[in-house]
């Protein structure tokens, strides 16, 4: 197992390097003038003379050969220098760092309903195949699967905000803002709900959660329905395997047969799909943050795209790609933990 993890970790930098190639390549398509805009505060940029522009191009190496430019750019990236964001009105790295915790909070909370409810209901349905509970769960899943997430999100807003006033949009209420910006409020994890708890402010915690429920349901809605279907069919397939009969022939209790012998095998394909989904939750936050008017990485990148804020777009792309690569690594390790055939070859 350790050897497997080390092997996978050794490949990781290579994959990340590949990602930087692609992103750098896309940037080159913009041409030197637009690239320069991505390095300089625009208030300064507009006032520059042609000579000064050329001097800046030289300074940022935009006239250098491609390889040298890539080297310099990569060096910058490694030192956290991703350029200037017009939309964020600050350096891209700062703009990202401010917003990542908000999005991480949303995505991390969404994992629980997706994995918990999806897998749990999928197994329940399979074990009770063709009984009432199976039919009920499947109808639930079909409904989930038939709604695009943004449509569902709009319904949530309409019903739970407009009509009932329960789940407001945004990240938190106005009264919270003053408190969390005061020096009395300590940032420990930068995940607001956790920090609220750690500061002993249960009122803030509850307010933040209230703002999270709608987005979380919206993000997870489609995914858990999908995961449920995959878990159910995988579990049904495993329950028909001969080794399940062998387990029963030993005299094992049906609970042991399901929880020990069937579940672990059934979860092998679910891990692959489920893992990819969890990574995609990060991407899913883009739509949800826009619909629910939340501050976060997703809404930031969406705004950057409409205002052609190249540096921010590239920075966001770099971040999302890294999440994808690292997420995939974690899934592969998880996969190998469950299935000895992967780990032992």
């Amino acid at each position, binding site marked *: 197992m350790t050897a497997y993890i080390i092997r996978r970790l050794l490949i990781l930098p290579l994959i990340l390097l590949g990602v930087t190639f692609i992103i750098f390549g896309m940037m080159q398509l913009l041409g030197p003038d637009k690239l320069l805009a991505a390095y300089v505060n625009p208030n300064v940029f507009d006032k520059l003379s042609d000579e000064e522009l050329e001097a800046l191009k030289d300074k940022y190496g935009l006239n250098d050969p491609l390889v040298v430019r890539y080297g310099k750019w990569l060096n910058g990236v490694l030192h956290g220098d991703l350029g200037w964001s017009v939309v964020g009105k600050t350096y891209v790295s700062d703009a990202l760092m401010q917003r990542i915790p908000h999005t991480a909070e949303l995505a991390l909370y969404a994992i629980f309903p997706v994995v918990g409810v999806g897998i749990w209901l999928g197994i329940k349905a399979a074990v009770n195949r063709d009984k009432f509970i199976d039919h009920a769960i499947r109808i639930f899943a079909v409904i989930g699967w038939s709604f695009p997430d943004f449509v569902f999100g709009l319904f949530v807003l309409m019903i739970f905000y407009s009509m009932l006033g329960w789940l407001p949009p945004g990240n938190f209420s106005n009264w919270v803002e003053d408190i969390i910006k005061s020096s009395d409020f300590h940032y420990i994890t930068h995940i607001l709900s956790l920090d609220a708890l750690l500061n002993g402010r249960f009122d803030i915690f509850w307010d933040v959660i209230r703002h999270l429920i709608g987005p979380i349901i919206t993000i997870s809605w489609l995914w858990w329905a999908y995961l449920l279907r995959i878990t159910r069919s995988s579990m049904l397939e495993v329950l028909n*395997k*001969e*080794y399940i*009969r*062998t*387990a*029963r*022939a*030993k*005299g*094992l*209790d049906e609970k042991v047969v399901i929880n020990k*012998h069937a579940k*672990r*095998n059934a979860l*092998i394909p679910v891990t692959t799909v489920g893992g990819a989904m969890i990574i995609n939750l990060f991407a899913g936050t883009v739509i949800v943050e826009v619909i629910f008017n939340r501050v976060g990485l997703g809404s930031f990148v969406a705004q950057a795209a409409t205002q052609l804020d190249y540096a921010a777009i590239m920075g966001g792309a770099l971040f999302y790609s890294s999440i994808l690569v690292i997420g995939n690594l974690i899934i592969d390790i998880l996969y190998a933990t*469950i*299935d*000895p*055939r992967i780990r*032992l070859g």
Partner: protein
Amino acid sequence: MNREPILQVKDLKTYFYTEDGIVKAVDGVSFELYQGETLGIVGESGSGKSVTSLTIMRLLDEKARIEGGEVIFKGKELLKLSEEEMRKIRGNDIAMIFQEPMVALNPVYTIGDQIMEAIILHQKVKESEARKIAIDLLRKVGIPEPEKRVDQYPHQLSGGMRQRAMIAMALSCRPQILIADEPTTALDVTIQAQILELMKELQREYGMALIMITHDMGVIAETADRVAVMYAGKVVEYGTVDEIFKKPKHPYTYALLSSIPRLDVEKQELKSIPGTVPDPLNFPPGCRFHPRCDFAKEECKNIDPELVEVSPGHYTACPFYKVLEGVEVK
């Protein structure tokens, strides 16, 4: 045989209720199994051998319904036991080995873990003790380096080794009856012989009764004391191996025997019985073998032949068995 049988199967009927209709997989099967003996159950694929054994173990899926009959194990009617009582018998008193060692072991647990599971469950011993027993068992079934193998996963073992591990697992609680459903069919010929030899040896040592299920008369000749020949969900002939091989009293048995490849004839083709096994959704009327029977008469379409005793302990379901007298097995 005037001893009490350890297992008695009486007029067993197991049907599957499928979308296409009722599959009468087992349709009136009876036999006895005595202490320490090997009973062979032989018949072509689809004749209901596996369903018979799964009915005895009560391991059928929901589509199956046991329509009638009794399974009596040491005076207990197994079909009437609660699921919990039945679990105490499975793996402990009656154990089973399946056909495909490649798929009958759970790929995500070690061999040792899977053997120890039954030991811990039925014998209430500690894990360290169960592990010792598992290693001893692996050694006993002829697996080299058992201390190492015990921690390996099924995919790290060859087919023959996996079947040995299955045998170790089945024997882990010293069952009184072992049901082996085509234990060597998936293995190649040399390994097949080794596994059969091993099973015979262990049977003697443990003194257990063995039900050897196979489609191969050669395996029967090798291992069994008595045989039940099955065709289309019924036992059509039942008797000692000696009687059945030398004086078959049913045309189907005769056909099966004729299809065994003979060692003394060179370059022969592997013969199979002409015609196909009937569709269990729609058995032919009368004697179910009549469309393929070399000796069929017109009236065979209208009779429902029952097993009758033709000599002590030898039964046949063909009323015209006398036509076989003097006919040599080809």
